[in-house]
């Protein structure tokens, strides 16, 4: 855990210990994920193919761009029908002849029309298909930004200490706040409590519960 030692001074001293544990936790997660991914990562490194040949994954990449002409909504990579077997073979033949991906796709477009491609080409009018999501997303971001700004610019809500109804809960609530403060490190939210008299003096239940949750 050398790293945690290195990083510990960066943060508030009283939290050194907790930070160390936290960092080791993050390390554990990380090691699990990396070790899992590593095994596969090493597999994934395929050597550069020699001149004039092609890799199977390259061919599959092309398969996945071509729809099967007789089975709706399936690519030739997925479809289990004769024509898709043949089309896959054509893709591989053309690759072996040294054809590029685009040439092969064009070949199929010429024969079957543009809708043989699994996604519209990023040219001409079909650029709209690709740009609309980007524009929509941008507009959404701007809208959210404006909404947040307008909502936060309004007159700030009145800050007032609302009374707690059950006097017996006060020490408990203070304890909770202290813990939260300890663990969260926030120093700004120090609530104070007062008791609201309700005449009967019988405390009403459960209000404290929901308030405790509210702090989460």
């Amino acid at each position, binding site marked *: 855990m050398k790293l945690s030692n290195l990083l510990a001074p*960066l943060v508030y001293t009283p939290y050194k210990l907790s930070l160390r544990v936290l960092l080791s936790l993050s390390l*554990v997660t990380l090691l699990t994920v990396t070790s899992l991914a590593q095994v596969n990562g090493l597999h*994934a490194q395929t050597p550069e193919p020699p001149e004039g040949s092609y890799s199977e994954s390259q061919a599959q990449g092309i398969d996945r761009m071509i729809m099967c002409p007789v089975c709706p909504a399936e690519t030739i990579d997925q479809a289990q029908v004769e024509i898709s077997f043949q089309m896959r073979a054509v893709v591989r033949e053309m690759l072996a002849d040294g054809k590029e991906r685009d040439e092969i796709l064009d070949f199929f477009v010429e024969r079957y029309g543009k809708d043989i491609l699994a996604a519209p080409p990023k040219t001409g009018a079909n650029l709209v298909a690709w740009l609309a999501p980007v524009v929509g997303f941008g507009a959404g971001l701007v809208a959210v930004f404006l909404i947040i700004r307008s909502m936060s610019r309004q007159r700030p809500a009145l800050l007032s200490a609302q009374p707690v109804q059950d006097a017996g809960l006060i020490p408990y609530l203070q304890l909770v706040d202290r813990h939260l403060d300890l663990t969260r490190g926030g120093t700004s939210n120090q609530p*104070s409590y007062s008791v609201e008299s309700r005449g009967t003096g019988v405390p009403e239940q459960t209000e404290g519960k929901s308030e405790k949750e509210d702090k989460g």
Partner: protein
Amino acid sequence: MADLGAISLWIALALAAYSTVGSVAGKLRLSPALVESAQSAMYAAGLALMVATLSLVVSFISRDFEIAYVAAHSDLAMANKFTWVAFYAGNEGSLLYIATILSIMSAVAVWRAPEKFKDALPYTTAILMLTLTFFVAVMAVMANPFDKLPFVPLDGDGINPLLTHFGMFFHPPALMAGLIGITVPFAFAIGSLLAGKIGDEWVDAGRVWGMVSWVLLAGGLLLGSWWAYTILGWGGFWFWDPVENAAFMPWLGITAFIHSIMVQKRRGMFRMWNIVLINVAFGLALYGMFMNRGGSVPSVHSFGASQLGWIFLLFLAVGVIVPFAIFIWRYPLLKSAQNLDSMLSREAAFLVNNMLLLAIAFVTLWGTVYPLLSRLTNDEEITVARPFYDQVNGPLMLGLVFLMGVGPLIPWRKAGMASLRKSLLPPVVGGLLTVGILAALGLHKDYALIAFGLATFVTTGILMEWFRGTRSRHRNSGENYAAAFFRLIAANRPRYGGYIVHLSVVMVTLGIVGTSFFGVQKDVVLSIGESTTINDYELVYLGTVEVQKSNRTEFTSTVQVFRDGELLDTLRTKRAFYPSFNMAATAAAIRSTPVEDLYVVPSENLPDGSVGFRVLVNPLIWWMWVAGPVMVLGTVIALWPQKIRAPAPARPPRRFVPGPRPSAA
């Protein structure tokens, strides 16, 4: 039985219609008696539908082939357990299932509705029953499951072999229940609007029923993916086809809703937004049902194919336009109780989360609609399929995973920079280290690197929250760590249940990234004794056994798996040919480990005894299937009621507002 079922349907229709009209009339004319009788009619409609359901089940078990639906979806050879599946194998039965589920959910929702909502309840009942009336009417008139044939056939057509899979016992019913379930939170929202309620009374019911639909949809989608993975025989689990998308979009909508509703529950904000979201989710759910019922051809062209399609389209239009009109009418009522304090707050994070989810839904809808647009405007036939969605939705989903890590760590209201740095430091360090280490190990796919980094980021954040909470309990109450951990979860179930669900989403992410970026696939034809290699596995094909069954020919092929010369496993793949359907069903043999799946599926049996196999290595996909139960567990924890139920408060629930700090302590 057929007559009993048909009569029950008509009775249910009458009761549901009466309940709709009675609720509204009773409410408007201030007649509690009428409202009450309308409510009883709702329960009775549920009973009538259960009788109808039962009649259809009995007809299936007794193989009453006089009923057209039974003859079309079962035969004498079918095992009785498949009655469950045959029940919803066609439009008629699915509609009956949907109507029955809606009536049960309505009854439970109205029965359990909070006291404070009572005022608006008649409207909610009316909306639920109006929807039910629609489904039952469509069924009774256009797709009656109890229609009789003019003669009694000796045997039925049999069940579609693709449906005789374990996943099919749960995937369609879960999805259908999830889709129709969105009606319930929707009815609460609109009911509250119609009654002119200020805003927050419907929130609890909306949240609970929203989550019920959410988990049904999520589970249904995962089970569907699993079914596709094990039986469709191409090695993948999701390919963005229109019907999948139709179920995916409402899930996105309801996901946005159950997050955003938390803000209203806790802070009294986003009142308008939540109404908009539930309307959107409901609209998408109707669209999903329309896509499913419109016909079996998985494309938009199919809506002319079945008359049902148009009726559903009409209902979809009404179901979207009318609620928005009501929303605009009641708009002035929906003012937030609080203001947003800062861009750096959980509220703001939720808004961005909503925006991303809706963006994904928009892209998905856009991809479905674009081919139509292109044909109309450009007169050009265009396909929009998987490569489009992968490229456009992929980055958006990563953004969502990122927010999933940030959101729970940002406090409500306003985040202080210092506390934010402290809570985000370990996850960020974890994420960056993951990226660094993986890159150093030679993994150079940027996308995958980012995804793995984000996965660690989210997981670290969640573990950190758990650790901090547990330690705090341990220190302050002396509970041991295990007890402290469980009590921590029990004390704030919505929150910690939510974290468990988030973990399951991380697991799904691992599965998707693993297979999309590191999957290896190979098609080979092997004759007996031949072998092939994939990654470090060596596969030897030993032979095929052919067995004639009453309705199919089964080919079972045996493949031995070696690694480093050592026998790892013996796999048996199945391929069954059903002559009556002229259709082959495959079952992949999968050697599954948390690291990777070795997946072997036969694609064709050649006359000379050799077999065409597709072999895949799918890394990390195991995590995706394990995520399902984890997701359900998390949701159940989040939904589990706290022991002490608050009595209905006379005033709106108080907020915990920090007061001025005591000057002297």
